[in-house]
């Protein structure tokens, strides 16, 4: 019996097992982002919004929606993908993945695909939640969808790498807590970097999250802090870097296969 060129059943098995894991923790997976979004709207939308009616011609409530979605998309993608591969490493069940007739690409598609699908779903849920608080307007829905998918994939890939790299739960939480959270808060989710003094505006341009939020916001309101090309270019760069790293990881067996 000859082996197929692509182990679709194997990939589907990983994908649906990962999705099943989410169903088991449905409450945390969905309620947490919805609640957080609602809180952001109450705190930022109402408290700040009452002082700052609009930003660049967009109501403040609507202005923060793209940033809020990006925040969750980023953290969820990294969290889902990193735990997705860290857990089997931790429990030892990874032996089965390593001994199955699966190529590196198939393993990545299964795990990263599931993590990205989950965070896209959460992004959409947040979008729906936001619609309760503020009238939404999406000028370029196709571009919005593209950003949603690209961001989810890029940061799920990144999370997957962190999951392989991490030897402990502390390390698993280290990157999201110490790198991603500060960057997202300083990434222009709640303000336009035009509001910053020139020096900090320049500093912000080195913050990758600015490019994500800006591009995503562009798809909503037709305007962002940086150009659309810069945003798309940045996403492509992240994906390319992660893929390159993954090629190296699977070639060497780094922390996956002794």
């Amino acid at each position, binding site marked *: *019996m*000859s*082996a*197929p060129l692509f*182990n*679709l*059943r*194997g990939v*589907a*098995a*990983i994908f649906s*097992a990962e999705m*099943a*894991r989410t169903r*088991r923790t449905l409450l945390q997976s969905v309620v947490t982002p919805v609640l957080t979004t609602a809180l952001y709207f109450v705190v930022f939308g109402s408290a700040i919004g009452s002082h700052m009616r609009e930003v660049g011609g967009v109501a403040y409530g609507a202005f923060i929606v793209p940033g809020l979605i990006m925040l969750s998309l980023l953290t969820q993608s990294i969290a889902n993908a990193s735990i997705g591969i860290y857990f*089997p490493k931790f*429990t*030892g*069940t*990874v*032996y*089965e*993945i*390593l*001994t*199955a*007739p*699966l*190529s590196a690409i198939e393993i990545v598609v299964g795990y990263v695909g599931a993590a990205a699908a989950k965070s896209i779903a959460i992004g959409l849920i947040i979008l729906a939640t936001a619609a309760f608080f503020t009238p939404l307007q999406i000028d370029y829905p196709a571009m919005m969808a593209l950003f949603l998918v690209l961001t989810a994939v890029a940061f799920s890939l990144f999370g997957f790498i962190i999951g392989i790299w991490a030897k402990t739960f502390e390390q698993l939480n280290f990157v999201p807590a110490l790198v991603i959270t500060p960057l997202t808060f300083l990434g222009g989710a709640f303000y336009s970097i035009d509001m910053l003094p020139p020096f900090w505006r320049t500093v912000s341009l080195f913050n990758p999250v600015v490019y994500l939020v800006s591009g995503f916001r562009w798809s909503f309101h037709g305007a962002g802090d940086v150009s659309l090309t810069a945003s798309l270019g940045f996403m492509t760069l992240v994906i390319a870097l992660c893929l390159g790293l993954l090629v190296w990881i699977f070639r060497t*067996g780094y922390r996956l*296969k*002794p």
Partner: protein
Amino acid sequence: MPIISIAGVAKSYGSFTALHDIDLDIERGEIFALLGPNGAGKTTLISIVCGAVSMTRGAVRVDGADILRDYRATRRKIGLVPQEIALDIFSTVWNTVSFSRSLFGKPKDNAHIERLLRDLALWEKRDNKIIELSGGMKRRVMIAKALAHEPDILFLDEPTAGVDVELRRDMWGLVRRLRENGVTIILTTHYIEEAEEMADRVGFMKGGRLVLVEEKTALMRKLGKRRLVLTLAEPLAALPAELDGWHVELESGGSQISYAMSDGAEKGAAQIIQRLGEAGVHIKDMAMTESSLEQIFVDLVGAAAGSQP
């Protein structure tokens, strides 16, 4: 053609060499037992063939195909029950076994999974979560997972460690049935009687080397010394002159005479008894002892290796 052919396989972890150039052929349909003390390299060797560990040097062929180049074809033929129980504790028995089958690219076959779970006495527990199972049940789930994709070759890395007597018997039975269905089985164990009971061939590993590979019966014949032990009615101070030139020893303070028998030495035994009678020595009891694989093993690897589980 051997079903598995391991040629010059070596493995280093940094500067530590876990395997030194191993050569080994496994024949189709046999039960091969790998023995050896802790850290000998048994798990490492198995893991390399299965793809869970990468080799530093060498080549492995499964059914004629290279395990690196044709990994899809070779891995589909192999099932692995690793030494350590590793399961997703929140999954159910049915789901985790079905998952294994899909992972290997096989189409759904509920009848096969059902048969497997019934065979392994897990059918009643099919909807239970792994966390709700006993240790022995978990081990059986590991076996069910390894067999879910109907492999031609099954690796059992210490399948009966920490398993009760009844379950061990059950597992031996299962292994025999698998072999009757043409499955090749490679198992590691620290229970010598397990190898003695089941294996066709035995391999001894020590310090990352395959010290010896031998057909079990041949090995027992070659190394397993049969001894005739005669217990005397009255202890002797020295062997009687009638036994001069015979390779016999006086033991237990002169109360026993033992004679190492080589093949076709039955006549010798009869003559010794006759000569003792002529010398007026009365024999109270007579016994034949046969060294087990365990003794052979201890002789081979030194007392320190022992046979602890």
